[in-house]
């Protein structure tokens, strides 16, 4: 199939964010949208993530974006008008605190969450054990629980958005790599791919772990870097774990997906910035120790597969969803810092607001200039 040679907007990146942006733009009536992805859809961070969807964040903005996105996940088929089952499981996120300080942070976060009608609450170690009977509550001081958090399948969500986008006329080109963004007098005139040239005046950079490299094509330095995060999955077994378990201080997340497999990871220490996505034996060993201490029945379960993906990390661990002042009609959605999947539905809406110059649907400040203005509130709740 030949590429369209002219587009009103070219979206670079076929992850969940790129597809959500393309769909939301098409829904506003924008015609001739072309999305390009150098591999298959969700081949980058989206398809490599832990598949968790949570609303228990520390900043008001992240809470709001996550809550609005959850509403889309809850009504996915009707909202997007596609027959795609995203395997939503709302059995909660149980966040574990191992010090009074950490519990204090949860308390403050819950105040923010509750003010936005997110139904999170503090739990005692015994209540945590009631939610997860196999949980080792040794050293546990308390926790936070939100029953409407949970799991969604990242491939299916991306596929759903792409299908809905195609239904609205978007052209999606897989295995199409951007080589160059051509500009003339500071204005974008087109995108050169390995499959041909697309004339366009607008480009959205939704390239995830590689967004800073796409931006370099128009001489823009984004304040983000990429970092490998590893993950593993087990064989499917009968359900024993309802919520996602997560601890920032013990540094772990672990959930049992609807198909019965456990998926888990932790944040690396001393990982150099870069594009390495190889798996390591060190991860396998450390992960095994961490997970079996927390949930002893895992001991007898088989690990089937490990892999890695890239977090694209911004200075305040909140996304950058913005136009770029120096290059007219160049837009970025990057820096998701490990939580792009779960807020992608809202990000697509926000980017459509920015590109169509509409009033913002959500009261958030995610533009890139915030770093210069010094209006930076860091997200404290990231693994």
């Amino acid at each position, binding site marked *: 199939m030949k590429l369209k040679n002219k587009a009103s907007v070219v979206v670079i990146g076929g992850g969940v964010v790129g597809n959500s942006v393309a769909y939301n733009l098409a829904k506003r009536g924008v015609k001739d949208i072309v999305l390009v992805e150098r591999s*298959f*859809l*969700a*081949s980058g961070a989206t*398809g490599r993530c832990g598949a968790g969807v949570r609303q228990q964040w520390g900043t008001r903005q992240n809470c709001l974006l996550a809550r609005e996105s959850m509403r889309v996940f809850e009504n996915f088929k009707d909202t997007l008008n596609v027959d795609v089952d995203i395997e939503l499981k709302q059995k909660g996120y149980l966040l574990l605190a191992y010090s009074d300080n950490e519990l204090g942070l949860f308390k403050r976060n819950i105040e923010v969450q509750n003010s936005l009608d997110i139904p999170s609450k503090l739990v005692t170690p015994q209540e945590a054990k009631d939610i997860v009977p196999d949980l080792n509550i*040794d*050293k546990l001081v308390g926790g936070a629980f939100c029953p409407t958090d949970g799991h969604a399948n990242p*491939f*299916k969500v991306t*596929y759903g958005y792409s299908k809905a986008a195609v239904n609205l006329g978007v052209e999606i080109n897989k295995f199409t790599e951007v080589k160059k963004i051509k500009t003339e007098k500071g204005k974008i005139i087109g995108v050169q791919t390995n499959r041909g040239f697309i004339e366009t005046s607008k480009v959205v950079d939704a390239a995830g772990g590689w967004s800073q490299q796409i931006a370099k094509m128009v001489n823009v330095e984004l304040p983000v870097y990429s970092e490998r995060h590893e993950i593993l*999955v087990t*064989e*499917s077994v009968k359900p024993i774990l309802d919520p996602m378990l997560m601890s920032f201080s*013990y540094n772990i997340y672990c959930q049992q997906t609807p*198909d019965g*497999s456990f998926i888990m990871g932790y944040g690396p220490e001393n990982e150099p910035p870069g594009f390495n996505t190889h*798996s390591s*034996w060190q991860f*396998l*060993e450390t992960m*095994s*120790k961490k*997970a*079996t*201490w927390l949930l002893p029945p*895992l*001991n*007898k*379960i*088989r*690990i*089937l*597969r*490990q*892999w890695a993906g890239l977090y694209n990390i911004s200075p305040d661990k909140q996304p950058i969803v913005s136009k770029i002042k120096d290059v007219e009609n160049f837009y970025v959605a990057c820096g998701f810092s490990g939580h792009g999947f779960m807020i992608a539905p809202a990000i697509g809406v926000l980017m459509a607001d920015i590109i169509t110059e509409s009033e913002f649907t959500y009261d958030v400040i995610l533009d890139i200039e915030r770093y210069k203005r010094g209006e930076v509130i860091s997200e404290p709740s990231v693994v």
Partner: protein
Amino acid sequence: MNEDNIIICRCEDVTLKDIRNLIQQGFTTIEEIKRLSRIGMGPCQGKTCGLLIAKEIAEITGISIEKIELQNIRPPYGGVTFEEIIAGDEVEK
């Protein structure tokens, strides 16, 4: 035999019909079919179904089977229990 009754991926109960449907929708790589149907995600990690699916892709798309990439092989290559990984080590928080 009815393609509905032919199981291609026995770990995840995926039928020949499921596979053919996906290929016809344009998912013509094993990596894509894996992510949408769970083929190759079970205990055998695609060692049984991988080649069968490659053959189906070749037949439907006309691409020669030699040019069809099999899925990424990921560690630890075969199922290993957590306790086998940490055997002999003291576990401490």
